[in-house]
């Protein structure tokens, strides 16, 4: 067809621009992919409603409801008055919960990206796979931190005195936690071929992690290691101590209500370690797929 046409001598449209250096393309692409995640999340009303209603449910209903039952005197003769209320105790854990839900949820959209072809569109771009994954994870992290901040708004109702410095520290911790959890979500999503629904993730990953992270019941600080194992069954104590999220929640508690069960640096160390390891696994999967 065009063989019959005379070749077009003047090409008004293609004035091929100077191609940017590699690093600049990667950074630009990273920004684009990050922005996409944030925009998508902002437009997902379901996710927003979940992110706002979850803390209200946990802090205002469960927290206030259980508050009167949480007293030091429960433990027989060893009368010990803990320096915080149940509401204060659960508050940092709800921050972690909200971060966790949002991180895993945005990571799971990797499955949709794959099934609906969007992933392919970026895989045929000049972006390296590391950039693509990093954009996804950083986007998910940002959204999760924002959802974590939704909980911080409720600080007043939980009688948590929130100073600006504490809030900023908490945001820093949330960011590391969210990065690790989004990577975890991507690792899981990469191992799933067809989509089974987010409920599966919620019940099989998020809630078990959450419940066994000493988030809604304390391993009482007044009890020694041996006493703890008498008060609670052995297996539960072991699980709680093995769960990395325990240390993340503990770190948040240290910042928000100034109470640590473990050494303060432990939480950060565990979270940074988990973030690096999980991102590395996600990256490995992503390069292989």
């Amino acid at each position, binding site marked *: 067809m065009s063989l019959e*046409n005379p070749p077009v001598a003047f090409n008004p449209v293609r004035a091929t621009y100077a191609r940017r250096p590699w690093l600049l393309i990667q950074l630009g692409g990273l920004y684009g992919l990050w922005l996409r995640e944030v925009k998508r999340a902002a437009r997902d009303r379901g996710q927003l409603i979940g992110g706002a209603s979850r803390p209200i449910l946990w802090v205002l209903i469960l927290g206030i409801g259980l508050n009167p039952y949480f007293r030091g005197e429960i433990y027989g003769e060893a009368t010990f008055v803990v320096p915080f209320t149940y509401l204060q105790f659960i508050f940092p854990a709800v921050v972690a919960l909200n971060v966790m839900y949002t991180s895993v949820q945005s990571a799971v959209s990797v499955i949709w990206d794959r099934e609906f072809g969007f992933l392919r569109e970026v895989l045929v771009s000049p972006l390296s796979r590391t950039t693509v994954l990093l954009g996804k994870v950083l986007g998910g992290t940002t959204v999760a931190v924002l959802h974590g901040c939704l909980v911080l708004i409720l600080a007043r109702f939980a009688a948590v005195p929130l100073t600006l410095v504490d809030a900023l520290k908490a945001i820093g911790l949330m960011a590391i936690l969210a990065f690790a959890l989004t990577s975890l979500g991507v690792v899981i999503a990469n191992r799933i071929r067809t989509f089974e629904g987010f409920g599966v993730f919620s019940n099989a990953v998020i809630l078990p992690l959450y419940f066994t992270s000493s988030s809604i019941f304390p391993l009482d600080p007044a009890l020694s290691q041996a006493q703890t194992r008498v008060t609670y069954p052995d297996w539960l104590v072991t699980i709680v101590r093995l769960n990395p999220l325990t240390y993340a929640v503990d770190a948040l508690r240290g910042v928000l209500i100034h109470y640590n069960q473990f050494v303060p640096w432990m939480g950060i160390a565990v979270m940074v370690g988990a973030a690096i390891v999980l991102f590395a696994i996600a990256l490995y999967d992503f390069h292989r797929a």
Partner: protein
Amino acid sequence: MNTDAPAIHVADISKRYGRTLALDGISFDVPRNQIFALLGPNGAGKTTLMHILCTILAPDSGTAGIVGFDVVRQPLEARSRLGIVFQEPSLDDRLTARENLDLHGLVFGVPQPLRKQRIAEVLELVELTEWADKPARSFSSGMKRRLEIARALIHDSEVMLLDEPTAGLDAQSRNRMWDYVRRLQAERQLTVLVTTHYIEEVETCDQVCIIDHGKVLAIDTPSALKHRYGQQVLRCMPRTEADREAILSRFPDRLVEERDGEIALRVDDAFVEMFLDQFGNHVRSLSIDVPSLETVFLSLTGREMRDRGADTRERTLAFGRIGGEHTR
């Protein structure tokens, strides 16, 4: 730079999936500024070849190049010159048309002022300017496909790969799609490689490559193909079983196919007269297909286009379309 390299160079490409040989030593060159059609039934290996050309699948053997850049050794160079429209839409349907284009520009490293200018140009080109700020999920499938074509042009691609751009569109949208492709090709000096399993669509392409079972069966201009392989095919419905037997035993080597009682024979003008003389009273109906790409295809592959059922992937997509999950 590689100004004399062909737009697309494919040399002896093979790809095996498990025990099936998807591509079996495919070779062809596409000169610049052509519309080149890859025609074949579903499962012929078109999409596999497409994936190799767009650098997301490595061939088992053989080489392929885009304007001289090897797709395996220089994938980034090749990608930045390719504009790709996949068979399934790959838009982010929660973003608007403009946002989709802008993201593509960012990802391909198109600097800002130029990006804005390009987006306006390509939206104009595919007549979606009024829809620029509407989310892509509200678009019809024809509009989505047009937006994807627009997107593939943002980074000044030199070679455009279109994988079944008209699949799933109604006849009107299909014609419109081809109008866009032809106009683009002429205005932008693009090379277009398009796969399709609609034979009637390739009539106006510069070259047609017919592939089946991973092999190139023929490659030429549509008129040359018709001239060389085109066949008049006579289709008739015999009156009785005895007539059918008689026809079949009389012309065993002219038989193309026999289906639902209908007999198709390879014929020429002289044969038709002779056939009418002898069997005119013995057939209930009779029709003659003049040479068309349809008959070229038939005589090359010995059959018509085939179809297949939905796989797991399509089922998942269907799940998403009916509402799926709130993460979507």
